[in-house]
């Protein structure tokens, strides 16, 4: 008996009992579809997270000064253990283009008199050129703070769209020099404008007195503060996006390891967000697998259902088995016939289950999008949910269906094959 004949026979016996075959499949359908849905939620979550955190270039390398593990006498990090600007400049010179410094120092609030003679409050922050892209803000007019602005401590500034509208509603603010007063009194020339949707919305709603940031070179803010040579306990670096952040992290780590070799109690630890994200993604993976396994319990229940029906089927077809054996069917061909039938029931159930699971996942994905748009509209734009079915889960599901058919079909099949032809023929 060929394989194809086994399959034909299995379909013909399933046609005999359509309702029963479907109910048997239902257990498998539910099991497989829940496994597929849960694993798809897992992969989708993973892809969404990695796309929104890693994909936007928000990866940074964090340098942190910490105590060396082996020394218990010193429990405090002192100023001489800190990372100096020279160290950072050394790193940048040694590996040109690999890193950008992300700096943000809040200076104070300052008052500006607008062209209409209104008093207006701004928050002053010293930044470095990499900060804007790091904090996902866009320069929409003019230019960013440049590295020359930073190194030469130039009196340049970035202001918000809203501030421009308030300061000089009719003409561009770029190129104008504005005076700030308060704790620090100084003048800066506006070189660029950054977009700020949220405050712009507030402004358009009629809220006039909105405090926004004015960004100046961090070297300028340090000079104003009177601490020309900065030391840091914590530094953020933006790695070259075209290079592997892990390699750049290790490179920075070994650079600082060398510098801190002779420091008895402190060291610098380099860590990139990618690593943290990876840990997070692994957690998602583990959770998805764990929940899939819980869903897989229903597959076992489905398998028991298949076994039950196959046993009934064997009893029902006792005389058929007898005839087949009398006509020369061997043990193996009877066994094969019943196992094929069980496998086909499971495989059809599995296929329907995969379809239902995928359909359910896409539905859930659409639902998540709608929920996100209504509940958190301001982040919805930056989060792109793309339902990503797990190919591995689909392959495993198909294999699982076959396996369940073989496992739960083999005991009824063995029973059928072992029948004595004479007893089977006599059976009415």
């Amino acid at each position: 008996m060929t394989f194809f004949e086994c399959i034909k026979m299995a379909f013909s016996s399933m046609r005999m009992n359509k309702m029963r075959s479907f109910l048997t499949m239902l257990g498998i359908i539910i099991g497989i579809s829940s496994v597929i849905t849960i694993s798809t939620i897992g992969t989708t979550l993973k892809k969404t997270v990695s796309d929104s955190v890693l994909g936007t270039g928000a990866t940074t390398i964090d340098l942190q000064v910490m105590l060396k593990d082996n020394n218990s006498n010193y429990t405090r990090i002192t100023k001489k253990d800190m990372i100096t600007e020279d160290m950072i400049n050394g790193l940048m010179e040694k590996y040109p283009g690999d890193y950008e410094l992300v700096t943000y120092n809040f200076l104070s609030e300052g008052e500006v008199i607008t062209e209409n003679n209104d008093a207006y409050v701004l928050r002053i922050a010293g930044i470095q050129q990499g900060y804007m892209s790091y904090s996902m803000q866009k320069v929409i007019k003019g230019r960013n703070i440049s590295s020359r602005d930073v190194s030469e401590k130039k009196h340049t500034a970035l202001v918000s769209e809203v501030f421009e509208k308030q300061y000089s509603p009719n003409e561009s603010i770029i190129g104008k020099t504005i005076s700030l007063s308060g704790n620090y009194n100084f003048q800066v020339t506006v070189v660029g404008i950054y977009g700020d949707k949220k405050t712009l919305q507030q402004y358009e709603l009629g809220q006039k007195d909105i405090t926004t940031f004015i960004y100046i070179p961090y070297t300028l803010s340090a000079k104003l503060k009177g601490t020309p040579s900065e030391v840091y306990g914590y530094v953020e670096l933006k790695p070259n996006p075209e290079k592997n952040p892990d390699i750049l992290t290790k490179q920075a780590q070994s650079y600082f390891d060398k510098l801190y070799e002779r420091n008895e109690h402190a060291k610098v630890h380099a860590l990139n967000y990618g690593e943290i994200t990876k840990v997070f993604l692994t957690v998602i993976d583990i959770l998805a697998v764990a929940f899939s396994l819980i869903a897989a319990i229903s597959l076992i229940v489905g398998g028991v259902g298949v076994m039950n029906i196959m046993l009934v089927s064997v009893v029902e077809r006792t005389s058929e088995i007898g005839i087949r054996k009398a006509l020369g069917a061997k043990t193996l061909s009877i066994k094969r016939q019943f196992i094929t039938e069980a496998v086909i029931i499971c495989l059809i159930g599995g296929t329907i289950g995969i379809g239902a699971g995928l359909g359910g996942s896409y539905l859930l994905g659409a639902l998540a999008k709608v929920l996100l748009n209504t509940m958190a509209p301001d982040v919805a734009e930056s989060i792109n949910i793309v339902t990503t079915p797990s190919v591995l889960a689909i392959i495993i599901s198909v294999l699982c269906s076959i396996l369940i058919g073989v496992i739960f079909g083999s005991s009824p099949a063995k029973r059928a094959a072992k029948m004595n032809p004479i007893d089977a023929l006599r059976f009415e």
Partner: protein
Amino acid sequence: MSESVIHIDNVVKTFNVGMENELEILHNISIDIKEGEFVSVVGSSGAGKSTLMNIIGLLDKPTSGKYTLNDIDTSNMKDDELSEIRNSQIGFVFQTFNLIPRMNALKNVELPMMYKGISQRERTAKARKLLEMVGMGNRMFHQPNQLSGGQKQRVSIARAMANDPAIILADEPTGALDTVTGRMIMDIFHQLNKENGKTIILITHSQELAKETDRIITISDGKIISDKGGYES
């Protein structure tokens, strides 16, 4: 004269061996059937003729004694080896036809050939020829439940002939049929015996049918009480 196809030597069949209700159905039966013989086995119900037929058909094993079929000793054969012999050497015709439902006449006739591993094309051709031979050429694609008793029995005779077996074992083949169709079936058996030279063993309780055969073996209480030539009347 011709060679012996079936050689049964001192066969005993006991049911429920070793239990309280142990029952010996066949007592030391010895039969020799030659090639081309048309033999009938008669006896009242409970005489043991069905048990004997099951042993001859290799559906059941004797408790003791020796059964040689075509010079092959079948005593120590495994189940699958017995299946193989049934498949190629014995054609069964049952009282209740035993066709497989939801398979048409053609497929039913193909079944023994399928288990023998003959190709689809070859066995369809052969099955068509056999069905035409028994006069069922125009009903090849009917399901068993669309056929009358006589038609079903003709299909099962075609099936019994599928692998060109040496012997045909017919267990009350006309038992479920009326006289006219029963006659037709008997005519087919005569034809197979005369023209195709098949050895036919007919199990029946009817003396009339037995008288048509070459040799009548009468069984009573598990013993052979007479073994003589037919065509007496």
